[in-house]
Each structure stands twice: as structure tokens, then as C-alpha cells.
């Protein structure tokens, strides 16, 4: 299977941006973050002690509707979870994330956004990293489907997702917490526990010796490792002048 590709800071105007492409599902997401910024007309609604994370999802070849608002609510809650909104300069300000689906099929009316969710989460996270929004940790996510023969499939294509008995998206923090679970279909709890274990190994790598912080111990085949590499590459190229002199 071809792995995902991503790059950071690709746009000029936005404070942070990223593109994330998942060949397995066919989706390409462009993401941009502006923050900390003033959110107009919402002064009363803003939390005085904390930053407000706003998310906007824009479909590629249709106009957004209730489905987009629903997934935005989920993304906001998951990404908002790891934003340190009380750091200097952020309270009462907004962190505005825009996710533009520039490649792949549209999500049908009334369909859950599950097939897109991991790509949206990764693109959103990378844009936040690119904008240097303070975060408590990073996350990685995976889409898993269970076929009618009981097999667990990683990143099923939209067609395969349709025929799956159940679909699951899990987001795992860089410290192994379960940040998000969205499961649909028909399944029992034992199946879900298999899914949970599988998701952990995909996100964090099979050889997870618990020492994630050092970077060396991380299995680069994991989603988390991929996020780390993408960010590292970008930092290295931005500070090439610094590294040359070392």
C-alpha cells in the first residue's frame, strides 16, 4: 500500500498550512490555520481564559451543509483538546482552521464523514504545527473497517467502506490516549477491542517501547512517525542556514 504524503507551510497568507494526501482513500486535504486572531462579532461567546478553536470544512465539488457542520463539531472538540489555549497571546483569541477537500469524492448526504476523518485530523494537526499553535501533544488517527468475513481492513476505499459491516475511526494521542472514537455499523465490544489494539499499533508503531519522547525509539512506519518526520523535514529545511553553520 502506498503511504500518505504531506507537506507543511505551503501557503503564503495563512499563518500555518499543510497538505495531506491519503492514496488509499483518494482524499487530498489542504489546511490552513490563522491564529491567534480576533474573532469579530463573537466577543460575548468567547471564553475569557482560553482560546476558541474554529473549524471550517469545505467540500471539493459541492456546497457544505449540515454534514460539514457535524464533522466540524467533532474536529473542533478533538483538536481543541490538544490546543493549549491559555498560553501567552491566546486567551480570548481565535484559532481558525480551514480544511479544504481538494481531491477525492464528495461525502454523500447523510453519510458519516468517517472515511475522511483521519485525513482531516492529520491535515488539521499539521497546519496547527505549521502555525506554531501551542499544543500539549500530537495525535494520529486511523480508519478501520470490518468486512462481513470479520477481517479488519486499514483505510478502506470509499467503496469498500460502504460495504463494511462496521467502520471505526480512532485518534490516538502521542501519549497513547484515546482522543476520539467514532464507530458505526454493527459490531460487538470484543470486536471493538481488537480494533482498539490494531489502531494503537498502526498509530504508534508495533514496537512501542513507551519512550516516545526521544524520537529514536519510534517506529517510523507508524502514523505518528509519519507526522513526526513530516514536521522534522520542514524544520530542517527552514533552518538549513542554521544547521549548515553547526
Amino acid at each position, binding site marked *: 500500500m502506498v503511504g500518505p504524503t504531506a507537506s507543511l507551510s505551503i501557503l503564503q497568507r495563512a499563518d500555518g498550512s499543510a497538505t495531506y494526501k491519503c492514496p488509499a482513500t483518494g482524499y487530498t486535504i489542504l489546511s490552513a490555520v490563522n491564529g491567534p486572531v480576533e474573532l469579530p462579532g463573537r*466577543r*460575548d461567546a468567547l471564553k475569557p481564559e482560553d482560546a476558541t478553536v474554529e473549524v471550517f470544512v469545505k467540500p471539493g465539488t459541492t*456546497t457544505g*451543509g*449540515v454534514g460539514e*457542520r457535524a464533522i466540524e463539531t467533532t474536529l473542533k472538540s478533538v483538536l481543541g483538546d490538544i490546543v493549549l489555549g491559555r498560553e501567552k497571546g491566546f486567551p480570548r483569541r481565535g484559532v481558525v482552521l480551514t480544511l479544504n477537500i481538494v481531491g477525492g469524492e464528495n461525502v454523500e*448526504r*447523510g453519510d458519516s464523514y468517517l472515511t475522511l476523518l483521519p485525513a482531516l485530523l492529520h491535515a488539521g494537526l499539521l497546519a496547527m504545527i505549521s502555525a506554531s499553535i501551542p499544543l500539549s501533544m500530537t495525535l494520529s488517527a486511523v480508519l478501520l473497517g470490518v468486512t462481513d468475513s470479520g477481517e479488519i481492513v486499514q483505510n478502506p476505499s470509499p467503496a469498500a467502506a460502504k460495504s463494511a459491516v462496521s467502520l471505526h475511526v480512532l485518534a490516538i494521542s502521542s501519549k497513547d490516549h484515546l482522543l476520539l472514537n467514532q464507530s458505526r455499523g454493527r459490531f460487538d465490544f470484543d470486536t471493538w477491542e481488537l480494533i482498539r489494539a490494531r489502531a494503537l499499533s498502526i498509530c504508534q508503531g508495533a514496537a512501542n517501547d513507551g519512550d516516545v519522547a526521544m524520537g529514536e525509539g519510534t517506529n517510523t512506519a507508524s502514523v505518528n512517525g509519519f507526522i513526526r518526520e513530516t514536521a522534522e523535514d520542514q524544520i530542517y529545511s527552514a533552518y538549513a542556514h542554521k544547521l549548515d553553520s553547526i
Partner: protein
Amino acid sequence: MADRRRVNGPPGGTRPPVFASLQESTTGAAQRAQRQRQPAELRKIFLKTGLIPTASGSSYLEFEPSASLAAARSNPKSLIPPSSALKVACTVHGPKPLPRSAAFSPNLVLTTHVKYAPFAARKRRGHIRDASERDLGVHLETALRGAIIAERWPKSGLDITLTIIEAEDDRWWGDAPDSHDASWGMMNVLAGCITAASAAIADAHIDCLDLVSGGVAALVSDDSSKSASSVPRLMLDVDPAEHRSILSACVVAYMPARDEITEIWLKGDSSKAALEKGDVRSSHEALIDGAVDAARGANTVLSEAVTESIARSIAQA
């Protein structure tokens, strides 16, 4: 166009079902309901306050179903209901500070909002408020403004929201709307809204001059023959589905203790009314008096509900 903020139906649109059996009448649905009440007899009103604890004040009002509807409910034969009976939920939020953008006001700023549920009437209602719903809001605001002591609450706002869960019919469903027809059901709805809102305002402990209640009276003609002998009669609290023709109707918002009317809405031709011998009133005076009588009747229910509300809040304290 599709509404981006809602779940939309099929893009090509849908059609309401058409029933084939109107002529055959195997179910008795094709018979017009008859009024079983005396001309001055009101339908029972169910009114309860405080059902919505998240609001400062709230009330729920229901009209007693007419005899035909009650019969159809207990022994259903046809899918077509013979008539319908008002069901309204009312909430009051406030008094609360006005939004920053609002201009200074020395008085309590009243906002009234009336919305039918999409399934409230025979014809499916839209999600966005239409002209008649805005109309009702304006009438209601006028009715309530006269009763509320607005200067008690400067720089404050009061939001009154009424959700019509089931509306009154404008006419018998089998009748085609005729030329001098109006949306008579709306007048009953308004009367119900006034009474319900009044209860909710009292439940929210807003200072009022008096309890204002709504009442409806109408001139109806029930004779099928066009003979000259058929004279319209004055009736209180009419259910439009029970009458062949309504010539005119009047709704008032009335405060009994002060004997004041805060809002009056009279529609139709009231010239042909036949009053009792010796009655010197003009027919529209009689119509207004009738509506006031109806409002008085509603007021007894209203007072009970408000008393109950007060008893409850004392018990809580």
C-alpha cells in the same frame, strides 16, 4: 434552492398525498363536523405553567378537541382528521440585558416570536417564518405590551417564543377556500397565544397590570340553503371546521380587572348579523362583546394556572 443549514428532501420536491375516497365516503370522513356546543359555550382549555424549567417562565396550552375530533381519536376510521385543536408551548426568557449593539431603552423591550411546527397544520409548514407567522407575532406583541409594566425593567429585553405544535383549521378540510374566506384558524391561534403568553409571563414574575387573555367570537352561517331566512349567528370560540361559512370574526386581548382591551383584530363582513330583538348594539359591537366574553372565560383558566405557578414558586422558596 437547497437550505444549507437543514437536511433537505428530494431535490425535485414532493407532493402531499391525495385521497381518493372523498366521494365514496366509506369512512364517514366526508361528513362535516357539527358544533355540539351552545353558541356561548367555550371549549375547555388546558393550561399549565412551568413545564420548561430552563426558561424564566413557560406555559403549555391545549384546546379541548371538538366532539368530532374526540370521536375520531377514540375510534379512528379515516386518516383524515375532521378538525384539529390548538396546542401551544410558550417560553419566556428574561428580563435579560439587551445585546451590546442595541440602542438604549428605558423600558423592557418585548420580542415576540410565533412559529408553527412543520407538522402543525394540514399543509406542511416551511421552516422559515412566513408572513402570517410574523403577523401573529406583531398582534401578540401589541396584546402583551399593554399589560406589561415595561418601565420596571429599563435596558432589558424579554423574549417570548411560542411554538404552535398543532394549529386550528381555517375551514372544513373538504371545502374549497372561497372568495371571502380568510385564515380564520389564525384568530383562534392568536387568542390561544395571548392566553398562553400571559401565563408564561406571570410564571416568569414579570410585573403586569392584569392578566390578559384572548377570546374569539364569530358570525357564522350554517345553513346550506341560500334562502333569505338563513341569518348569520353570533357564536363564541368557533372551530372553523364545524361551520359552513364564517362571515366575520373578532379576537380581543382583554384585561378583566381593568375592563380594558389591549388588542383587537376584526375581520370579515359583520353587517348581516341578526341580533336578539331589542339589542341596540351594532353587529360589530356585539362581535367584540362576544370576544370579550370568550376572553373572560379564558381568564378563569388563566388565573387558576397562575395561582398554581405562584404556589409552586412559594413552595420552592
